[in-house]
């Protein structure tokens, strides 16, 4: 049976495909190590199996997620690398302290020398000694539209990244694998840009007031009605900034005496919003439904800590696509749990709206669920729509309550008119209401690009995390020196990539993250893949020890025959 051959254990470590219905007893994706408990990671006695109540009937198509285990040698070398860097860091600090080496760190003015220092030296150890060395991979300024190809401003540093100077030259036509441009709406020509230009001429560039005072333009009303129709909910509300949508509305929804169950890898905006609300926060393991169910049961049975009073509300906070892992939330199971235990669900679709699903309506569309099951649907317009801002959609009572109680509606300025118009035009394009098939074409192109890119990278032998259908592709680098080397080598080959290290990821799991876009053509992807392969050979990044899969076409068709 093809099943057993694909799940054979090789060299003691394995990556298991989780196909529903196949491994009846060993379902559940395999993330072999808790992110913050490193001692258990390299137990060769096998992965920690989650005996899942993974209900195959909830999923309409196979849910394939991979998180391959870190090879032992790589982990050891990574720790050694960090150890050496720390030793050098202490050495350099010592030299700076005794003025042998020139110090570029920001210093207080002379009059304030005896004030309590703003930063303890130790807090900044990581920033001073590790981040500064490879700082040129981030904050790269661009001077064109952030589409599939962009122009970077060239900058040089004469003192090892402490200060940068712009040479005045421009690096042209760098393939952009870093911007969140999933559907290619980051463009300065075309119907979206024309409509935005018209609106700027009519309304000006700003609003100058809050939503509940004079800041509610008729464009905002049109936008909210359109968003509600797009998502399939009763009504919606739009805000000026995506991050602020989370951090200002979660406090309005929950308070003391409520419980928030949030995923381990939730975004900082969700964590900040949860903290500001004052509720109790409990964290469940990433995408792990058993952990969530256990927390729910314990919470309802035991009530609030110490007083044992029943909780007022329980709110489950998850994201559609997790941007650092590339994994998609197990929404059917979460919805089943929420219905069983009468909890509320807050879904943050920052990356998945517009990028997943046959109609681009996000992760709810991707799984074919009813949008009314999700109580609060939140998302941002920055990624797929090429604008800025966030929205919350849900039942009419919820949105009415938010209109009166949300901090953003009362105190913060509303969305500027050109931004709102850009969203309206791009959303109509995706829905097909502008009369062209541009939306469906782009959605199809995005999913084709995603599948192609992921398949090719996996064939080359890199370790790729995440779900097969997510346009966010993390490629594991692990070692600290490779973070800097990868970013710079790719730039030399005219490809702009994003590399991420601590503290956005666990300390040894640094990665490069690619964002596939519908604006990328097959040639651009091929160029990029060639360059990645070259750099991968140069830096020895092809860690994957999985067996090469059989040619996907034949295998998939066989599998579909076996699926009952």
């Amino acid at each position, binding site marked *: 049976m093809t099943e057993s051959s694909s799940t054979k254990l090789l060299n003691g470590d394995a990556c298991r495909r989780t196909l529903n219905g196949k491994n009846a007893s060993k379902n559940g994706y395999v993330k072999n190590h808790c992110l913050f408990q490193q001692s258990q990671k390299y137990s060769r006695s096998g992965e920690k199996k989650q005996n899942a109540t993974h209900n195959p009937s909830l999923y309409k198509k196979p849910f394939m997620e991979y998180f391959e285990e870190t090879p032992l040698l790589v982990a050891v070398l990574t720790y050694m690398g960090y150890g050496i860097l720390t030793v050098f860091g202490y050495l350099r600090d010592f030299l700076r302290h005794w003025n042998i080496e020139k110090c570029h760190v920001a210093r207080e003015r002379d009059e304030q020398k005896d004030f309590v220092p703003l930063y303890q030296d130790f807090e900044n150890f990581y920033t001073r000694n590790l981040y500064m060395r490879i700082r040129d991979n981030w904050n790269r*300024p661009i001077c064109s539209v952030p589409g599939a190809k962009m122009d970077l*401003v060239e900058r040089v540093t004469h003192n090892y990244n402490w200060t940068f100077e712009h040479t005045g030259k421009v690096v042209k036509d760098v393939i952009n694998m870093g911007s969140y441009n999933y559907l290619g709406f*980051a463009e300065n020509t075309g119907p979206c840009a024309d409509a935005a230009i018209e609106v700027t001429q009519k309304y*000006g560039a700003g*609003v100058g007031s809050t*939503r509940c005072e*004079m800041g509610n333009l008729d464009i905002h009303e049109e936008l909210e009605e359109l968003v509600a129709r797009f998502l399939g909910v009763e009504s919606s509300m739009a805000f000026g*900034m995506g991050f602020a949508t989370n951090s200002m509305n979660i406090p309005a929804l929950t308070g003391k005496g409520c419980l928030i169950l949030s995923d381990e890898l939730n975004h900082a905006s969700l964590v900040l919003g949860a903290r500001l609300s004052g509720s109790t926060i409990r964290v469940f393991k990433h995408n792990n439904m058993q952990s969530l169910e256990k927390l729910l049961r314990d919470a309802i*049975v035991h009530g609030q800590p110490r007083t044992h009073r029943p909780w007022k509300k329980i709110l489950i906070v998850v994201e559609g696509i997790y941007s650092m892992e590339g994994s998609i939330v197990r929404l059917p199971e979460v919805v089943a749990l929420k219905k069983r235990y009468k909890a509320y669900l807050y879904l943050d679709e920052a990356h998945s709206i517009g990028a997943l699903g046959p109609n681009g309506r996000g992760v709810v569309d991707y799984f074919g669920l009813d949008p009314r099951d999700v109580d609060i649907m939140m998302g941002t317009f920055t990624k797929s729509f*090429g604008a800025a801002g966030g929205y919350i959609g849900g039942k009419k009572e919820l949105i009415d309550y938010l209109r009166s109680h949300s901090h953003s509606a009362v105190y913060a300025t509303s969305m500027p008119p050109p931004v709102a118009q850009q969203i309206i035009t791009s959303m109509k394009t995706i829905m097909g209401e502008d009369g062209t098939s541009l939306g469906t074409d782009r959605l199809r192109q995005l999913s084709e690009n995603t599948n192609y890119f992921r398949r090719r990278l996996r064939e080359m032998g890199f370790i790729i995390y995440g779900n097969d259908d997510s346009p966010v592709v993390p490629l594991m680098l692990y070692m600290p020196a490779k973070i800097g080397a990868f970013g710079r080598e790719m730039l030399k080959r005219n490809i702009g990539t994003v590399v991420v290290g601590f503290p956005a990821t666990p300390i040894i799991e640094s990665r490069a993250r690619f964002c596939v876009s519908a604006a990328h053509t097959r040639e651009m992807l091929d160029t990029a893949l060639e360059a990645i392969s070259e750099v991968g050979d140069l830096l020895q990044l092809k860690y994957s020890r999985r067996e090469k899969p059989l040619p996907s076409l034949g295998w998939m068709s066989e599998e579909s025959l076996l699926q009952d």
Partner: protein
Amino acid sequence: MASGQQWVLVEMVQAFYEAPAYHLILEGILILWIIRLLFSKTYKLHETYKLTEREKEDLIEEWQPDLLVPLISKDHPSLKYNIVSGPPSHKIIVNGKECINFASFNFLGLLDNERVKEKALMSLKKYGVGTCGPRGFYGTFDVHLELENRLAKFMKTEEAIIYSYGFATMASAIPAYSKRGDMIFVDEAACFSIQKGLQASRSFIKYFKHNDMEDLERLLKEQELEDQKNPRKARVTRKFIVVEGMYINTADICPLPELKKYKNKAV
């Protein structure tokens, strides 16, 4: 090797015979007590609180959450926003009627300025509308850097940083510097954004009466006394004074020259 061990054994036995009687009796009692503890039945206090599966299921069935949001009356004023059609400049069309605009924050009248609009359109034609990324990942444009340089020159400071959302600026800047355990002296009439920043920073907050310098001085003197009692803690506690230039809640200006004095005195 073996003889050395036997030698030690003989010594041990001899010591046993020579030991005083009370010592042996005490040791014997202790050994018997240990044996009793080892073999006695363990008594878990929480045994009595464990719930059976049936009870758990019942509790889960019974529990009813509150409504997600409390119902608000249909006549709540915030439900009907005023709809503005047309540009929000000196004259503004609200709900179909043309009015003189005393409501928008348009102090210099730049919302409807032709030159501003022209430049905005030029930049739209060059860069598109959105940045599609955070500052760290190809979201920094050369115009952002230019703006930061100009702001720094305009405000006569060394450097400047820009945020895309006004509310978030204060709410992010305060927790960036002031952490748990630090001290912040804030005017009572501080705006909501500052209040959220203070809440996020988890520091000790002390409010002084609005624009009342004596009150602030009193608080600072109290803090100084506290510091003298506990100099070690004082050396690591940072202190901040947070004021607004022009208060949105009370429409007056803060007394900046006096604040400068306090800043240097209160070390």
